[in-house]
């Protein structure tokens, strides 16, 4: 299913989901995000190889993922950048100060895919990478299919080094 505003052929949701599964992710923790709604969340909800936990507020995901990590269970948090911003304190405490392998896939709401996030006309998008940099959180822009190869390597690194990582989804996956 192509998502609203998707550019067919530029970013495949199917490829992203394959990368998530190849990374041994068992749980996807999510609050819906319109950028990733049709191309990622909807198919993940139907995927028997992943367990989707729908939460009420994004910071819950940080706690749940931390608890799972103590059981050596891998989780991916699928949220919107507004939810990331709302969860900064939990990310600060758990992901950064406790050095937990919190893996976040963050849809950039209303981002113009032809621009770099730092050059976005949307203030909330523009501040994402600088905030991640200030917090010392590794991040990767996933804007085209060629970027998807970064996902598995970065998740492996996050769990190996017990450190957070963020993937910024720069366009609606088809």
């Amino acid at each position, binding site marked *: 299913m192509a998502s609203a505003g998707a550019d067919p052929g530029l970013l495949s949701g199917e490829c992203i989901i394959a990368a998530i599964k190849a990374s041994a992710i068992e749980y996807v923790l999510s609050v819906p995000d319109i950028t990733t709604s049709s191309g990622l969340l909807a198919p993940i909800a139907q995927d028997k190889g992943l367990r989707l936990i729908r939460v009420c507020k994004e910071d*819950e*995901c*940080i706690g*749940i993922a*931390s*608890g*799972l990590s*103590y*059981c050596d*269970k891998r989780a991916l948090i699928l949220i919107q950048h507004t939810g990331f911003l709302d969860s900064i304190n939990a990310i600060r405490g758990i992901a950064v100060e406790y050095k937990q392998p919190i893996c976040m896939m963050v849809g950039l709401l209303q981002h113009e895919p032809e621009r770099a996030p730092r050059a976005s006309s949307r203030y909330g998008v523009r501040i994402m990478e600088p905030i991640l940099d200030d917090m010392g959180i590794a991040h990767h822009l996933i804007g085209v299919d060629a970027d998807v190869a970064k996902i598995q390597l970065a998740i492996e690194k996050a769990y190996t080094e017990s450190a957070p990582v963020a993937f910024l989804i720069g366009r609606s996956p088809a």
Partner: protein
Amino acid sequence: MMKRDECFRVLARHIADEAVVATYSSAVDWVGVAPRVLNYTSIGAMGLDSSHGLGLALGRPDKRVVVLQGDGSLLMNLGSLVTIAAVAPKNLVHLVAQNETYEANGGHPIPSPKVDFAGLAKAAGYAAVYDFADLDVFAQQVAHVLEQDGPVFATLHVEPSKPLTYDYPSLYDPAKRRAFKAAWQAKD
């Protein structure tokens, strides 16, 4: 009205290999009563105790998880009641000490002392819900509370305690997190 530390002394008699998730005043009292490797006190952000507990319960369905949360903490993460009820982990027991104050932040009152947390948990869909204000009744029923299929919720109506000493470096000690992880992952 009960005292939180007295409730926890009663509770501790029934705790064996469960993970106990606690923070702030509940963590201070619990660690004082029951210092043990399977205490999980690195919460990272107020209110997330219940969410950490859900993650631990999902990851080890063969073990039980007990969350000791304060009322101020739960108010910061009320949505977790709905999430936990929807996920419905049978091995999660969620106890909330209601003293009607933000005790760790100066003892100021929560926005309303009339909050019916047990009622909220019941409405959210917890499998079993309790409300305790008498220590003898709690002592009589605590074993059943801990044993039945969850998610189980109980409010413990307690007095604000005397000023506590919050030893955060100890509660958040990375070595304790590592020890917890090793013990929690150990197979029986």
